[in-house]
């Protein structure tokens, strides 16, 4: 199962790079954007904002 999932992921990435329509550098930046910006954002404490939302 894990091998199959790994194969699927690799195949999808290869497709994205080669035939998915995006250039290799575009794809790399997209992946970095989702992972790095997503991680940096996840380190922020949005509780204060959440409380505001609930109050409003």
């Amino acid at each position, binding site marked *: 199962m894990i091998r199959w999932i790994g194969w699927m992921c690799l195949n999808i990435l290869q497709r994205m790079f080669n035939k998915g329509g995006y250039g290799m550098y575009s794809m790399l930046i997209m992946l970095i954007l989702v992972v790095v*910006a997503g991680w940096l954002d996840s380190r922020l404490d949005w509780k204060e904002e959440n409380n505001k939302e609930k109050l409003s």
Partner: protein
Amino acid sequence: MITGHFGLAAGVKKIAPRLPLWSLLLATFLLDVIFTVLSMFGLESFAPMNPAHPTYGEVIINAYYTHSLVGALLISALAGWLASLRWKKEGGTVIGAVIFSHWILDLLVHRPDLPILPGNLGNLPLLGFGLWEYPVLSAIIELTLALGGAYFYYRSTMELKGVQRTRALAASAVTGALLLALFIVNVMGL
């Protein structure tokens, strides 16, 4: 319209700070992720008009399932419902809307290649305003969405204080820089 999609997703953080940025970024790109999976099975396809010199907006797209109006609505509704299980109804609605925003932005730039029904059932007219015929104009729109998205993401972090403020500035700077880099690389066809 890659950068435009991501720019819009980053900007949505201003109105939905509860949602993690990664979920918004993934949502805005979900139709293309499913498109890539379908292309593995030959159901959809994408090719540059001139493979030797791929140029910004010069593409032939056959995405009759994921990028059909009804298909995009169904994917948005289903993914929005799944998201609502984790981020409540409001979060699910925002995620669903961000997913569907992909189709709206594609409608602006695509040449008429977006069907109404999945598989282009009934051979109804294909949709697309074709802004890619005017690459400078579509690039300006993309850049505006990217810079606007980075700005609104930054604005969404204004209330954070202390260490959180420093982290927020770093997150804003990195998000803005990556959006700008994505725009440049995409327009150069790399």
